[in-house]
């Protein structure tokens, strides 16, 4: 089920005017920031379909900026986020992309700083609810309903077992898990939705496990 809480329906509390285009956009921006692990210095944001056609009127642009700055959907500074981003050294470029997308409210965010970059596709499915459908070229389906760990690893036998063994040791239950790879033996992405937030100590231990390249987490 796409929606699992009554507060997806009665909520979120948000700055207007659109739950899909404003609150949802802010949440996509925030998911990107969380996955990047820090505030990016630049962002190139491609907008598709309804996002592309109506983003100015709905404040989708400042909402995405607000998310990248780490704002919540009801932050009263939301509408000033573009200026605040500029003051904080975050350059944002918006591209109205005419390519078609499966979901009417789709954004592709390419964000980075001097050292690294991240590419993410987020969709806003209604009432402020979002899903992350692509990360650095990997397809995934991340609902944001639960905390999640994203693990970039080498496609080798034992990689998954080494991760699940550590989670089992700390009695962390896996609610949903998927693994996606670019090619046999190349980079792969493990997405694990868990029932409770995972401590940084455990993440550190996961990072040192066999065949693991990089780890990030999303707090629900």
């Amino acid at each position, binding site marked *: 089920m796409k929606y699992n809480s*009554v507060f997806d*329906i*009665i*909520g979120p*509390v948000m700055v207007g*005017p659109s739950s899909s285009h404003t609150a949802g956009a802010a949440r996509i921006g925030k998911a990107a920031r969380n996955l990047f692990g820090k505030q990016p210095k630049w962002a190139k944001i491609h907008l598709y379909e309804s996002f592309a*056609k109506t983003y100015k009127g709905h404040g989708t642009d400042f909402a995405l900026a607000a998310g990248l700055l780490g704002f919540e959907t009801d932050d009263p500074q939301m509408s000033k986020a573009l200026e605040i981003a500029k003051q904080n050294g975050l350059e944002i470029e918006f591209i109205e992309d005419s390519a078609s997308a499966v979901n009417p409210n789709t954004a592709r965010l390419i964000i980075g700083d001097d050292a690294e970059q991240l590419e993410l596709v987020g969709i806003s499915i*209604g009432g402020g609810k979002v899903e992350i459908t692509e990360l650095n070229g990997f397809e995934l389906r991340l609902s944001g309903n639960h905390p999640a760990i994203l693990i970039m690893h080498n496609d080798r036998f034992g990689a998954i077992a080494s991760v699940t063994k550590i989670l089992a040791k700390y009695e962390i239950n896996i609610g949903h898990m998927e693994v996606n790879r670019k090619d046999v033996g190349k980079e792969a992405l493990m997405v694990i939705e868990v029932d409770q937030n995972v401590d940084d100590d455990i993440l550190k231990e996961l990072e040192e496990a066999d065949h693991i390249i990089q780890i990030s987490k999303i707090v629900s």
Partner: protein
Amino acid sequence: MFRTVAELVEIAEKENILISEVMIRQEMDVKEKTRDEVFEEMEKNLQVMERAIDDAMQGVQSVTGLTGGDAVLVQKYMKEKTPLSGHLMMDAVSKAMGTNEVNAAMGIICATPTAGSAGCVPGTLFAVKEQLNPTREQMIRYLFTAGAFGFVVANNAFISGAAGGCQAEVGSAGAMSAAAIVEMAGGTPQQSSEAFAITLKNMLGLVCDPVAGLVEVPCVKRNAAGSSLAIVSADLALAGVTSRIPCDEVIGAMYRIGQQMPTSLRETGEGGLADTPTGRLLKEKIFGMTM
């Protein structure tokens, strides 16, 4: 977990509890929270709704100037004249429009189920409250009942205009309100389901065609339509009128109609009212460009 309205009503009837109670128990179960925690969270949403209506009654204006002030106008009319459709009805309409005026002015609202349709649930609640004198707990339960029905729509169809047109937003919001009014007025779970079905049936096919792509025209007045239809449908259901088409089948019809809607009528600001001479002119004025 209930997946359909039929299941929702069945649980309520079998356990002899209210629809709101089914939703509260499921939320406690899914989120592993106590009753107090779940109530507290909903109380916060209720407070946001209350504040938005208060703000609206002071008079608000959107940045574009397209919307704002109509809620105040209606309240003034109600004081000076006797509204033809009755005081409660116009009070709901005014509070629903007011909430959406605050939303259009980029104020803080609670999405129910979306921001564009955020007026219907609080508008009807704070109007019906004057006549039914509910306790604070019953007001919070109103939101759980509305949420239970919205939950089914969101999981079986859609609640966003971009996905399914305005029928998915104001249609759902109005129907959720109708179901909640019935429970507050002492109706049965089945009557809530009838009220929901009757409302949504009358919203089928409604397109999402915002002028200049803004959540202003016609969104504010569509919340007036959604909230008034909710009250009429609740009265019909409480009188014993039933929907010949079962609630879940109406939701299914709404889903299929939404899938058949062209993109131009799903929140792209390209068709319908947005594509009228005045609609295009307003867009040009606001953004300094032609369509």
